[in-house]
């Protein structure tokens, strides 16, 4: 079942065509990696999908409905979770409180003025934290966590709304190589287990080729390949972009 369908997406900045006629789809439980050399249009493409940038042309369809023109928080309501390249968490709160915030939003209880926030959805938050192996750090302030742990908190926060699509921007950026694969394995297991479609950009090719079901390669704003890791590895156009004409 197709969760996300991107059709003929284009975006120019001034005279620079950052993304040109890009199309791809992601099915439930599938991990699609968006890769490409620096300046290929990965980040632009990613931001067109998550609503941070409006496209010049094209369509972004989530479960058959257009996401274009929706504010990020409305996109989230539809069932799209996100993690950021540089982690974004609530630093003045504990790990559990971060997840509780997402749960309060999920249950539409944010406007409540009299109940005590830290007593809400405690068990649900702890269950989510257990899924990302952060249960034992639930009471620590987010400000003191190791970077890899923050990434896992972000995962738990993203899962709180039971998303159908997860957007991960450079999920392993800033992490030690040994940690990277663990985190991506965790994300992949969670996504496959719950049938969540995942779109991620990534610099670490080890991570990409080990964990992605499919890889979409951008170069000069255009999609030059889209297939399984084996297919992409063998693709002549991809080899040329990455390895030059000596390949």
């Amino acid at each position: 079942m197709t969760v996300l369908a991107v059709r003929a997406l284009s975006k120019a900045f001034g005279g620079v065509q950052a993304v040109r006629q890009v199309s791809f789809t992601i099915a439930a439980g599938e991990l699609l990696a968006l890769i490409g050399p620096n300046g290929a249009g990965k980040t632009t493409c990613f931001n067109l999908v998550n609503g941070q940038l409006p496209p010049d042309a094209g369509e972004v369809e989530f479960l058959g409905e257009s996401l274009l023109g929706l504010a990020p928080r409305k996109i989230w309501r539809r069932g799209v979770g996100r993690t950021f390249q540089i982690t974004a968490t609530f630093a003045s709160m504990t790990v559990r409180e971060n997840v509780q915030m997402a749960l309060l939003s999920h249950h539409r209880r944010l406007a409540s003025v009299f109940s005590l926030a830290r007593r809400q959805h405690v068990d649900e938050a702890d269950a989510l934290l257990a899924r990302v192996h952060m249960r034992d750090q639930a009471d620590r302030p987010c400000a003191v966590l190791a970077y890899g742990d923050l990434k896992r908190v972000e995962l738990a926060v993203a899962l709180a709304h039971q998303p159908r699509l997860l957007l991960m921007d450079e999920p392993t950026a800033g992490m030690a190589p040994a940690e990277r694969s663990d985190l991506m394995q965790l994300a992949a297991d969670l996504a496959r287990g719950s049938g969540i479609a995942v779109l991620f950009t990534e610099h670490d090719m080890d991570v990409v080729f080990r964990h992605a079901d499919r890889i979409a390669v951008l170069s000069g704003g255009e999609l030059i390949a889209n297939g399984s890791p084996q297919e992409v590895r063998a693709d002549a156009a991809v080899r040329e972009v990455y390895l030059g004409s000596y390949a």
Partner: protein
Amino acid sequence: MTYSSVLIQFLNGLAGASTLFLVAAGLSLIFGVTRIINFAHGSLYMLGMYVAVWAAEPLGFWWSVPIAALAVAVFGAGVEIALLRRIYGAPELLQLLATFALVLIVKDFTLWQWGPEDMLGPRAPGFSGAVEIAGRPFPEYELFLIGFGPLVLGALWLLLTRTRWGTLVRAATQDREMAGALGVNQKWLFTGVFALGALLAGLGGALQIPREPATLLIDLSVVSDAFVVVVVGGLGSIGGAFVAALLIAEIKAFCIGLGFSQLTLVVEFIVMAVVLVLRPWGLLGRVPAPARGAGGAEPPLEAPSPAAIGALLALCGALALVPALSAGYTLVLLTDVLVFALFAVSLHFIMGPAGLHSFGHAAYFGLGAYGAGLLLVRGGLPMELSLLLGPLAGGLGAVLFGWFCVRLSGVYLAMLTLAFAQIAWSVVFQWDAFTGGSNGLIGIWPAPWLSSKTAYYYVTLALSAGGVALLWRALYSPFGYALRAGRDSPLRADAIGIDVRGLQWAAFSLAGLFAGVAGALYAFSKGSISPESLSVPRSVDGLVMVLLGGIQTLTGPLWGAALFTWLQDAVARGIDYWRAVIGGVVLLLVLAFPQGLTGFLRRRSAA
């Protein structure tokens, strides 16, 4: 309106724009490089006026202008070296507070040196007559000013683009850290820029003396105007300041010309509102680059322990016992403390958890006070009902102004809240027929059963403690947490479906409502109200209370309010120049405890 009167009004506007531009350009330059919003910029302007009037008598007008400008520049350099250098690393709010302390000190210095009377300046020799334009006489001096503004703009442009120093200033404006990394000596660059900004302000003031007398009230009105110009033009943009000064001065001139001089302030507000909605960073401003490695995370807001709650309840109990032990003045003072505690807590509610740094919170305090007073005096409502309904005026004012304010953040927000407060003040001040104008309203006394000091003290205690308890409770509710979420990471908050702006607007309105409660209580405790209750100094009182106590603490605003109210009372009764004393105390506190008193004590006890 005939062709000639249109032309005359247009020229009037141009002349007004010149001085406005000088002040705003200096403010913008200083902010661009040092990232300090110089609240005292209007005070530098005022100093320029006074020095020029004073020097013009022996030396003549044309000598007095450069002398005043240079004197103010030297003063500015001294302030930068002695004070600002020590606080560049401090939180933005404390920097603002320090410059406000300067406002108080400069005001009292001026009062001490030149007395309370307005001082008339001379006319400008050579430009004292009038020329005929389109069949009407037009002052020559205005023509001189019309030419002078663009001249200064040109000179600034040359300085900034054609000199090495100017290149460094522009580099520091764009990326201060990178400029520092490239070996630019920031120390003297900052001093130089501050001196130049002060020079422009002093020059603006000195050039104004043939047009209007030097007065002690000019400082805050000029700095509010300059804030509006800078916000409309875009912070850090000299060209933007020029365009905005022209736009605002022209619109004002035409309002006066068409006989709607009462409208000038509202029009300024409308212009600013429209610009901010369409271009949040001003006409020629750029979206500010996020500061690299900007300050650490805000500390968590610990929930009070049962013991702390017990202590607070005990405090309430003790306060309830005070009338049995003491009467008279203690009760009056404690009533004030309670009123301002609620005011400070309501301000803290948006400043701390929501990160909305309001510099105009007195607007809602004053609107609440006037709401209650007007309902009683003009509406003929019973006192009890006026006390309950009056605060709605504060809440409604906050709903209106807040809608604009939450669209901005940081210093833009601070300036906008200040400008709104100044506008609210001006409306109250000018609307003689309804608000009593500068005299205010009198005869706002409590109902007979509340008329004793003791009875009214209990009412105040109940409402203030109740208000504080409600606001504090809300801080730990999902609503309060969501506010903190929006402050900690707007990006993340948005990505989990939190409507940050909407919640901030609600918080702003709620804080306005409770400030209104404090205002209404205040009105009935004094029996009268004056525009002072929503003036900028009252807003700053609130800021001082919150910052003294420590902004990321829960009970800090209470202690800040108590200390400040007591200090003001003790000092104002004993000393003529109490403003300067308060300013001095605030400066010392800012220099000694950059994290506020409670923050300091907490760290002491943690160490």
